[in-house]
């Protein structure tokens, strides 16, 4: 545990070496903690680009985001992680072929409101829950 943490700290001081290390170790199937940590990424869903501006009044689109990255040990040092995810990570170390690492997934989701016409030109304002990622974490 301590050794892993130390390795992590050393790498963070030498970002250029880290990049070279990541590339050079890809072929060696190195530990995946070299990859980017679990975090929120940009993803914009454009209703306009879908060609729906004739019936969706608002919004033109919305920032949905997505979660991606590695859930590597120690989880609780840099991201939201459930207690179960931390335990699962430990068990993964013991038995990596059986128990996978935790997944990087949304921990907080928000709603969006959409204003649109129906076939009869009536107008609907409806709230859709869990459409926008507010925070990511390891599950």
């Amino acid at each position, binding site marked *: 545990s301590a050794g892993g943490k130390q390795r992590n700290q050393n790498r963070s001081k030498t970002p250029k070496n880290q990049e070279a290390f990541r590339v050079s170790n890809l072929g060696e199937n190195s530990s995946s903690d070299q990859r980017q940590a679990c975090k929120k990424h940009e993803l*914009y869903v454009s209703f306009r680009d879908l060609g729906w501006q004739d019936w969706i009044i608002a919004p033109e689109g919305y920032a949905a985001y997505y979660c991606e990255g590695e859930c590597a040990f120690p989880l609780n040092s840099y991201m939201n992680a459930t207690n179960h995810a931390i335990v699962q990570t430990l068990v993964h170390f013991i038995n990596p072929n059986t128990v996978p690492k935790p997944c990087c997934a949304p921990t907080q989701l*928000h709603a969006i409101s959409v204003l649109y016409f129906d076939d009869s030109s009536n107008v609907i*304002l409806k709230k859709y829950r869990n459409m926008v990622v507010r925070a990511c974490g390891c599950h």
Partner: protein
Amino acid sequence: GADLPGENEVHSSFIHRRLRSQERREMQREILSILGLPHRPRPHLQPGGKHSASAPMFMLDLYNAMAGEEEAAAAGGASLGAEGPRGLEGGYSYPYKALFSTQGPPLASLQDSAFLTQADMVMSFVNMVEHDREFYHQRSHHREFRFDLSRIPEGEAVTAAEFRIYKDYIRERFDNETFQISVYQVLQEHPGRDSDLFLLDTRTIWAAEEGWLVFDITATSNHWVVNPQHNLGLQLSVESIDGQSINPTLAGLIGRHGPQNKQPFTVAFFKATEVHLRSIR
């Protein structure tokens, strides 16, 4: 641009790929399914009607006020849990009060009612009566309206409904007079004689007043949703203080021939009664 250093690194996680036609159709179908729609709506809009008609304007005001509240909640409530504060997430009450600043002051409204905090969907309905028919029968004027409430999304129940009609300022003929405006549910129609009516709501207003009149039609709307065949529309009549019937147009009530942004409409508030489950495809 993912391999370029500097500024492009910020955008390296954006998805940049033009969808093929088939992919585009499939994605559209999936998003429509998430929105609870069986197909892409094809509204028949009059030229300029999208942004100038009264109902879309009303709803857009509501949307904008709601979006402002959501942004404020998101900015200030980051530690409030997965779904944020329930009162703001689930209801339309707060912005509903704010929208009257752009739609003109209401002469009456349901704005203080608790039902608004429960609504998770708001829907406006256009008047389906093609032309104003100013009926004059047995010395009685009235105007008819009809709204199709049969096509609301599944699993939604009406918690409140309002009929909204705009009253313009009338100066010449009825200065300093008051009118009583009554809205009725049509129970049964009879050829050649008056329909059977049920009084829903009344308003007493000055001739000089101007703005949106709001009538509570909640019970009637619920009845129509459950029994669409009983939806025979609404009747509106205007009387002077001494009981004399007055033509609604002369009283300043805007009808079909009035401006688009003052056309009468109905707005209903819904609450989901069941969990919507998407089918497996």
